[in-house]
């Protein structure tokens, strides 16, 4: 028999195989009903303080829609990184896993329909003593400008301002408002980093001159002060802006300075607190400045651990 005698059958068989594969792939992801059905299992598995991560990332909106803010709060969804979480619950579909939790030890796993729930333990957990973004409001914090000296007043009902298509992040109703226009404020917002991941941070657009200083009172300190800074990537990627300097002072002592240059992305910084380490109540200032303030949409987050 000639080996290629029936080769023509490969084409219709391929067509039928593609048809079967189409339906197989189309039915693999969970429907909205299946997302709703997994909620009780997530509630049972996720403990207080656990980070909930969805894999693959494109399924995140479906997960958020089903699970809601209680299980997936903005603080976690737009986390600076995963280092602060002692445990995470990975809600996985299609056999995919997030690289963010690579190296974490699996404590338990549970299959629920199309979902795999894995509770993971951070191999290097840290204890966050104080999160500055969480406390960016009176009476914990105040904001001022230095040249000329100005005070940025706190409000809980400022008009929300959003940049729209290609524009700046949303300025929330609760924020410190400074003179000079809506850009000059300090409030909790979310920027898209260089991978367009959400990062919750303190908007801190520098003034034309001097510093915009956010001061925190009665801060219990850990060993280091650690954080990230960046700009909405659409702005930063043009690499056309001036460098931005973030200076951190503890009780008047400068403990570190981080210079952010366009293109750095969501850049980490960490300062050793030296003699201030372990203080029960310190005053911590974050001072942001730039030689040229055009499109300096700087946003930072920090904690002490």
């Amino acid at each position, binding site marked *: 028999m000639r080996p290629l005698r*029936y*080769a*023509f059958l490969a*084409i*219709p*068989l*391929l*067509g*039928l195989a*593609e*048809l079967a*594969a*189409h*339906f*197989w*792939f*189309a*039915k*693999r*992801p*969970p*429907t*909205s009903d299946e997302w709703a059905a997994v909620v009780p299992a997530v509630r049972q598995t996720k403990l207080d303080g656990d980070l909930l991560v969805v894999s*693959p990332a*494109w*399924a995140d*909106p*479906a997960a*958020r*829609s089903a*699970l*809601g*803010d209680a299980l*997936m*709060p*903005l603080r976690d*969804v*737009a986390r600076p990184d995963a280092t602060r979480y002692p445990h995470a619950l990975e809600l996985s579909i*299609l056999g*995919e896993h997030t690289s963010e939790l690579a190296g974490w030890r699996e404590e338990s796993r549970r299959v629920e329909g199309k979902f795999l729930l894995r509770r993971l333990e951070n191999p290097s957990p840290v204890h966050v003593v104080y999160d500055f973004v969480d406390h960016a409001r009176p009476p914990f914090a105040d904001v001022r400008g230095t040249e000329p000296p100005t005070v940025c007043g706190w409000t809980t009902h400022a*008009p*929300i*301002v*959003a940049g*729209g*298509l290609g*524009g700046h*992040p*949303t300025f*929330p109703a609760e924020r410190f408002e400074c003179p000079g226009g809506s850009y000059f404020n300090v409030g*909790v*917002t*979310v*920027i*898209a980093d260089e991978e*367009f991941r*959400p990062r919750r941070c303190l908007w801190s657009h520098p003034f034309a001159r001097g510093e915009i200083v956010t001061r925190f009172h009665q801060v219990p300190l850990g060993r280091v002060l650690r954080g990230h800074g960046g700009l*909405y*990537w*659409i702005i930063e990627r043009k690499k056309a802006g001036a460098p931005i300097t973030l200076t951190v002072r503890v009780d008047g002592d400068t403990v570190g300075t981080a210079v952010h240059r366009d293109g750095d992305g969501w850049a980490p910084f960490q300062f050793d607190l030296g003699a201030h380490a372990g203080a029960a109540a310190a005053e911590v200032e974050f001072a942001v400045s730039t030689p040229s303030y055009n499109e300096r949409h700087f946003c930072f987050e920090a904690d002490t651990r």
Partner: protein
Amino acid sequence: MTRNGGWKRSLGDAAIALSLALGYVVWLLRTTKDLGYARDEGFYFQAAQSYGRWFEALLTDRHAALARPAVDAAFSVNHEHPALIKSLFALSSVFLQKRHHLFAVEGDSYRFPAMVLAGGVVGLVYVWGTQARGRVAGLTAAVLLAAMPRFFFHAHLACFDVPIVTMWTLGAYMYWRSLRDGGVLFPLLAGLCFGLALDTKHNSWFLPIACGAHFLALQVWAILARTRVGPLLPVPPAPGTTRRRGFAALVAMALLGPAVLVALWPWLWHDTVPRVREYVLFHLNHEYYNMEFLGKNYWAAPMPRGYAWLMTAATVPTVTLVLFAVGLAVRGRLWLVGVGRWLAGKRVTLRAETPVDAAGTDVLWLLCILINYAAWLSPGTPIFGGTKHWMTAYPFLALFAGAGFSAVVGAARAELFRSRRRSAIVRRFAASSWAPAVVMGAAVAAAPITETVRSHPWGLSSYTPLVGGAAGGASLGLNRTFWGYATGAVADFLDREAPPQGASVYIHDTAGPAWDMLLRDGRIRKDIRGVWSIAGADFGIYHHEMHMLGQEYQNWVAFGTVRPAYIGGLDGVPVIWVYETERIAALHGHGR
């Protein structure tokens, strides 16, 4: 075949082509209501409305309408693109809709001309495939082109992307007919069609390059045949008369094409040279848009060289691509064998039954594919429209696929003939002239048609099983949508959820005129206002594109939640989602 039989066959083919075209247009019309309006459609609606007013003025006061101020005022709108297709949109709106109310909604009247042209190219591919490679090849090619999900998506739109596919293919077909049939008519038609293509979209600039390269190939082929290499050529060259016909067609294209462009684009009637220069420079220096590819957002050169190839593999049904490869191999086998024997130092002898393809059909089709993909070999070429920019290659890809399928059916028939003594069923099957083609055709077309039907109205989110379908495309980091057209998919949600006194919606990537058309069509309640800022809006729409994720985060802070109130998408993959205020959520008992 008798002359009478030839006429009957031609009439039959014309009827089949017309049926395919009409059937496709009906399919498009019946599915268009599910599709929101794309950004560019919004801009073309505006242009068509401006053109339409001019056409109406032309009927009432021709002298005033033809004066420069009136012409420039009407055609300055969106003058970075030629006028032909927008003129058709305008004429359809003015005559078919405003005067005769042929369509259920106004938007359909603008989309209708592009749908007709989409049907036209499906019919044309049948005709060309049939004339060149037989009915089985022609019909298969037409079906496989129609059943490409991305082509089907674009075929709905009041845009230029499918119309240029039609005009480009028509121009190439007329050039081919010039070579095959000679005479005066087809070179003139080639010139006219090139002009129509020029007045459709700038992809037309590649058409004379493809035809010119083909003409050169025929010349080189003929020259080689006269040298010592000649006896080694596996296929004889086209005769001199054919080559002269090709030259005539190219001359007609060179002379008539620009003349037709200027004649049918009133914007060029004045200040012609500077305006043509402005038009050409706009497209030669087109800005870079954002495009996600393999999980990375590209927004400036260098763009990824693999983009066009991988996206073709990921979006054109695999069986179509495999049949294309089969067709290419089958049609190229003489060359491949010849080159192989030449490399082995053996003399090539032509088989007596090898027909001389004077029009060099395979070479022309292949060049039409390669030229249309060539721009994407340069990392400097902007990527701003996904697969639509090389869609002009798809009719030729389908034609090779049709030829491939015809060869596969031929192999099946031969095997059935050999096996005819085994059983009565095989004997009857082997005796039938159409049964093997129908059975195998059904198996081949099932996946492309199913993928196309199921992709709607999420055509830009659709990926083939080769990459894991829509979910696989999302996991690979391939673009999920662009143009903001998916708003149509959330219209029912907005109508249902907006309070009785009306509401405001941040419409994100939806163009203003596209949103307005949804309102005019009655697809969204007229008391729902589109707004440009999330702040203060009752709803916030988010169309997912990687570089637009900042927009989603604007919604989170403005609405105080990360929980979408509604998600629309394909096969479990979110494409568009909507946020709502706490007040609206409370109205409907939605939690957060």
